């Protein structure tokens, strides 16, 4: 609600929820950063920390920025204050006491604290009221009133007891409400704008948000949403739907993707377009379900037996998630193969303001057989690009069977009685070559990695996916203020890997630093496999937490100072 108040007030903001699998209690906190400029990561410091229990207070107090404050319940939280940095202030408030006046639900404490925060930052209380109204819109009127009253009390309490922050928010001169969404929501919005008509999933953090949004918008957006019995069913349903002709998407995290591996090859072999969202979390295995990581790249690239074409895109920002999703559908249908959208917990679940997204969506459905197809219809016709015109059930004159067994141009399987006969040995090779040719064509069409920051730099950071957030912030801030010039190469269209375009960029860099949220530098390894270029300097994080700007900056200093 706070983030939305900021965005409606025309501020940029970026919010991240830190939570655990367990529903109950645990250590839950939510951090929001707002600014007039675009906010690209969760940042290092917090301006206002709201601590509802002693643990949160102690853990996060050191990160309250100079000039910032910590608001805590003075009756329940024991807080000494000596963990705070010099210029930060501790603001005890009777949160529980005030909130109990309006509702017995302890969540109301948050609302009181939010009210106080609004005052401290000088935000417009009216905007907040509209947000509350919309958030609880479907609930009882009394809930809305109680919340507004609680927030007002917090606002008033703060007003009479504390002074505003020095860094009070100056509303932008021309306040234009901004869109505020999570990466998951951006993916959903992209999908429905791209004409997705089928979404199947099995709940799994951090991909569940996709299912929830899609289920809530099914009727409105005309998407058949199916929660299936497991991820095996999920992807096969998606493939079935795509075979029948709709644009279909499925979503999961690493564990669920593990179960989709066999069917990935099925989509590859039958040349069925399907979009798979893989929102990574900290592994291996069940790992840390509510923590972030970028540890599944090896799996996405290696999944399923044999060689077949697949495409992997990793959106860099919430905004990019919208566009990448649309692109994913187009690529899937153009190349008739599975497309994996590699997200992660940080991207999927953090909330961010986005500049206006284009409503003008280009849809490319690829090549289709027309209904007056010459007979016999060759669904898997060998062509120069490897792309064979598609057809779907219901269409007259294009009857064929899609088979996971190797088949000839017409789709007839050649794995049984025909296998080993020279003519069909050759036929097999032709089909392999045809399929893999699509990947080669796709490779040449892949854009180069995104170069961000100055042309000339002392150090070039290599990253992919959501890590671009913190990296770009460092390029923008540290890179502009410090003597060290920093730029970044962000890999987003990851596979097929366009080595011709990537290699010169890497080779011309003065120093290269790989920044990834995983143990084994999976992107760096991919780069070496495809270009031979080895990135020796690496900032790798795999403790479940996202990478912080100060960590990147520290590493930059280390690398640039060494034998400089």
């Amino acid at each position, binding site marked *: 609600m706070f983030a939305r108040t900021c*965005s*409606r007030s025309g501020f940029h903001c970026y919010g991240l929820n830190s939570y655990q699998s367990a529903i109950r209690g645990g250590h839950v906190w939510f951090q929001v950063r707002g600014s007039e400029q675009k906010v690209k990561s969760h940042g290092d410091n917090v301006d206002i920390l709201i601590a509802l229990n002693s643990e949160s207070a102690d853990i996060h107090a050191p990160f309250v920025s100079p000039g910032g404050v910590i608001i805590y319940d003075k009756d329940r939280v024991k807080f000494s204050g000596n963990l705070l940095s010099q210029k930060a202030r501790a603001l005890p408030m009777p949160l529980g006491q005030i909130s109990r006046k309006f509702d017995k639900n302890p969540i109301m404490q948050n609302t009181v604290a939010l009210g106080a925060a609004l005052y401290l930052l000088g935000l417009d209380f009216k905007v907040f009221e509209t947000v509350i109204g919309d958030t609880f819109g479907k609930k009882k009127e009394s809930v809305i009133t109680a919340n507004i009253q609680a927030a007002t009390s917090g606002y008033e309490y703060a007003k009479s007891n504390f002074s505003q922050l020095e860094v009070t928010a100056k509303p932008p001169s021309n306040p234009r409400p901004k*869109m*505020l*969404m999570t990466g998951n929501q951006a993916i959903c*919005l992209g999908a*429905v704008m*791209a*004409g997705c*008509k*089928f979404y199947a999933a099995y709940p799994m953090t951090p991909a569940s948000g996709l299912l929830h949004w899609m289920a809530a*918008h*099914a*009727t*409105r957006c*005309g*998407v*058949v949403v*199916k929660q*299936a*019995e*497991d991820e*095996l*069913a*999920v992807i*096969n*349903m*998606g*493939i*079935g*739907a*795509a*075979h*029948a*002709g*709709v*644009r*279909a998407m499925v979503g999961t995290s690493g564990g669920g993707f593990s179960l989709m591996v066999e*069917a990935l090859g*099925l989509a590859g072999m*039958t040349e069925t377009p399907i979009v798979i969202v893989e929102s990574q979390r900290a592994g291996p295995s069940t790992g840390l379900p509510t923590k972030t990581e970028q540890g599944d790249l090896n799996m996405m690239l290696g999944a399923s037996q044999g060689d077949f074409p697949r495409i992997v895109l990793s959106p860099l920002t919430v905004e990019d998630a919208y566009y990448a999703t649309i692109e994913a559908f187009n690529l899937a249908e153009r190349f008739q193969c599975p497309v994996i959208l590699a997200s992660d917990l940080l991207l999927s679940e953090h909330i961010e303001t986005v500049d206006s997204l284009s*409503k003008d969506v280009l*849809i490319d459905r690829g090549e289709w057989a027309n209904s007056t197809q010459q007979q*016999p219809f060759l669904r898997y016709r060998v062509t120069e690009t490897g792309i064979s015109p598609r057809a*779907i*059930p*219901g*269409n*007259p004159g294009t*009857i*064929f*069977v*899609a*088979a*996971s*067994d190797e088949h000839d141009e017409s789709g*007839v*399987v050649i794995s*049984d*009685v025909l296998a080993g006969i020279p003519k069909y040995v050759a036929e097999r090779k032709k089909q392999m070559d045809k399929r893999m040719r699509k990947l080669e064509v796709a490779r040449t069409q892949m854009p180069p990695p995104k170069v961000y920051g100055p042309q000339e730099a002392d150090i070039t950071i290599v990253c992919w996916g959501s890590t671009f957030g913190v990296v770009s912030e460092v390029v923008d801030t540290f890179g502009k203020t410090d003597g060290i010039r920093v730029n970044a190469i962000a890999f987003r269209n990851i596979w097929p890997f366009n080595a011709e375009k990537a290699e010169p960029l890497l080779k011309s860099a003065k120093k290269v630093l790989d920044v990834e949220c995983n143990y084994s530098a999976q992107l760096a390894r991919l780069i070496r496999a495809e270009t031979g270029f080895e990135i020796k300097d690496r900032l790798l994080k795999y403790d479940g937490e996202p990478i912080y700007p100060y960590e990147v900056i520290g590493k930059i200093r280390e690398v640039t100072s060494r034998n400089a």
Partner: protein
Amino acid sequence: MLELSKYKSETRPDWCPGCGDFGVLNALVQAVANLEIDPKDLLVVSGIGCSSNLPGFIHAYGFHSLHGRAIPIATGARLANPELTVVVTGGDGDGYGIGLGHFIHAMRRNLDITYIVMNNQIYGLTTGQASPTSQKSFVTKSSPMGTIEEPVNPIALALVSGATYVARGFSGDPKHLAELIEKGIKHKGFALVDVFSPCVTWNKVNTYDYFRQRVYKLNDTGYDTSDLGMALEKSREWDPKIPIGIFYETTKPTYEELDPVLRTGTPPVKASLSQSDVDGLFNEFI
């Protein structure tokens, strides 16, 4: 009735001479011909196994998918285009072994598809291992001392899982089988047709003769197909006689009738790709 030749595939079945699956193929062709389903509107989905090769042998749209995954594929296709007639064909290993979970979940959905299982009580394609319907003590390559597990009872499972049409046929009686399939396709909701379809190569116990001596038709006994309790009892009959025919039949709303998007009537595959109220959608995020 359409001509049977309309469904004739260019590809000759590669089954062993005498394989029960020939009878099933013929019965299916007879059924769709009787129902006058245009081959272009028929989608036959299968998994992997000798039986699962069937879609290649009938002139209709087909999807020869993965071992055990035919039902999810069919589900997706049907949800995308409910104007198609969707028939799933496969083996006992495919459907009652590796695919068992999907089978049961599909039945509780009551999606309007027809599932024909060529139950030969063996893994045919992989050259003869025990299947989930193999009788106890059955000796195979993977059970040289005889199997020691209770066989799956697909009829009983279907009855307790919400299937709305549950039948069993015998490929030695293709006329009767064709009727069962025809009714199954006509039935609105999930229809199971389990078929005794002897594997002449790997199963030397459950042969044509074995079944000829044992099967009898429920229909001939004045059986009431609406009595679930009775159906459950009949599903446990095996020795000395084995019932075939329709065990149970009922009417319930189908998944297609209940799904909020499908019940609007437009098949998703025919819906416009663009959103009607883009501005409203975007404004939700402000």
